[in-house]
């Protein structure tokens, strides 16, 4: 493809008319008693500020420090995660997949944008984008490389395409050098991208390219 024929896929600026149309529809639905402004505001507030990847970080940090919880999480993710209070839409049926020295997991939804809201919040733009959805199941190593993630040659990638109502959370590997850290400090290390599987977790100061997991 030649550069000047390639239009932007940024896709966050709609025609102005859409902004107006959305406002008009909202007014219409409120006037018809089908939605309430207060509810809309509360929904936005919920997913903009209350439900986000911090929830998932707590799940991961607890699994790293509590072997019983980890066993429960891998056996019955829905129940284990609910025990921490993280439940709701798009998280009714959870499965946690564990990264190890030989397996790296990656989550995608090729058909739409299925994503575990209660533990990760709403998905980032790239997760919903056509390039990620198309390539994650075809060339996962190439996808990881775009995130600066290199895996050793003997690490096998397992891709999870969320085609039903099962939702997947990756349990990343705990970085070495974090022995004895409290759960809260470990949770600070856990990134959203590591729980989708496009990145590994490194200690602050580590090589950010991710080609070594710890120093």
């Amino acid at each position, binding site marked *: 493809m030649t550069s000047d024929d*390639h239009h932007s896929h940024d896709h966050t600026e709609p025609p102005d008319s859409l902004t107006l149309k959305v406002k008009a529809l909202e007014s219409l639905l409120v006037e018809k008693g089908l939605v309430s402004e207060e509810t809309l505001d509360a929904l936005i507030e919920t997913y903009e500020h209350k439900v986000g990847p911090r929830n998932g970080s707590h799940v991961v940090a607890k699994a790293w420090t509590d072997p019983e919880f980890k066993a429960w999480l891998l056996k019955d993710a829905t129940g284990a995660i609910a025990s921490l209070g993280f*439940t*709701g839409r798009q998280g009714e049926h959870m499965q946690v997949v564990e990264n190890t020295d030989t397996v790296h997991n990656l989550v995608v939804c090729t058909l739409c944008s299925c994503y575990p809201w209660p533990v990760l919040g709403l998905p980032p733009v790239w997760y919903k984008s056509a390039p990620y959805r198309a390539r994650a199941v075809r060339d996962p190593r190439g996808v990881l490389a775009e995130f600066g993630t290199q895996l050793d040659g003997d690490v096998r990638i397992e891709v999870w395409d969320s085609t039903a109502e099962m939702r997947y959370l990756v349990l990343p590997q705990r970085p070495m050098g974090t022995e004895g850290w409290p759960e809260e400090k470990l949770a600070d290390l856990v990134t959203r991208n590591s729980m989708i599987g496009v990145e590994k977790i490194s200690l602050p100061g580590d090589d950010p390219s991710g080609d070594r997991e710890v120093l």
Partner: protein
Amino acid sequence: MRGSHDLGGLEGLGPISPEAESCEPVFHADWEKRIFALTLAAGFLGQWNLDESRHARERQSPDDYLRHSYYENWWVGLKTLLLEKGLVSEEEFDSREPRFQASSLELSALQAEDIAGIILKGSSVEMQAEKAPGFRVGDQVKVRQDITTGHTRIPTYVRGRVGIIERHHGAHVFADRNALGRREAEHLYSIRFLSREIWREEPEENADFGVRVDLWEPHLEEVGGVARK
């Protein structure tokens, strides 16, 4: 259906170009927030389910689907369903003035105080199945090739492919029929495919990978034959 939402393996799409995690906002514009919240709140009215909602987004013209941003596609889906289910009329969309009241529909809006109890509780799609599961963990299965005109959760890239059942998730609402408004249980399985079985190319050394897809029993057949019933 064959639609452009079915993206697995599509080529030519260019780089992913992710925003940095530390900088990316949850929403990128106010109109995105409103479409998101309107879609959730309107869904609560119970006039359609999640699979009908997905299908409403998928049914638009394939070039529109690919050209639109994510929440533009939500907008198309929401508008389609409001019209089709008779909650809003074309006339109301055009005039932007209400012409009939929801009271006649006997619907009540989601209230802010219900969010914790409804949205943050979620609702399971697990059901009791009448039949015992037709496949067992470890079975080889082949994905059916049927291309029906309706919504389906079989991605094109696994059609006709052979994989191994790794997990039985129990019986869940069957999406393909749920999109037609029929709430029926079917056994759901996690199936693992090898990349070389899907793409039929010899992987470079150690480059083979596994792909897990969740499919319902009607999506599957025994290798070399029809599904066990």
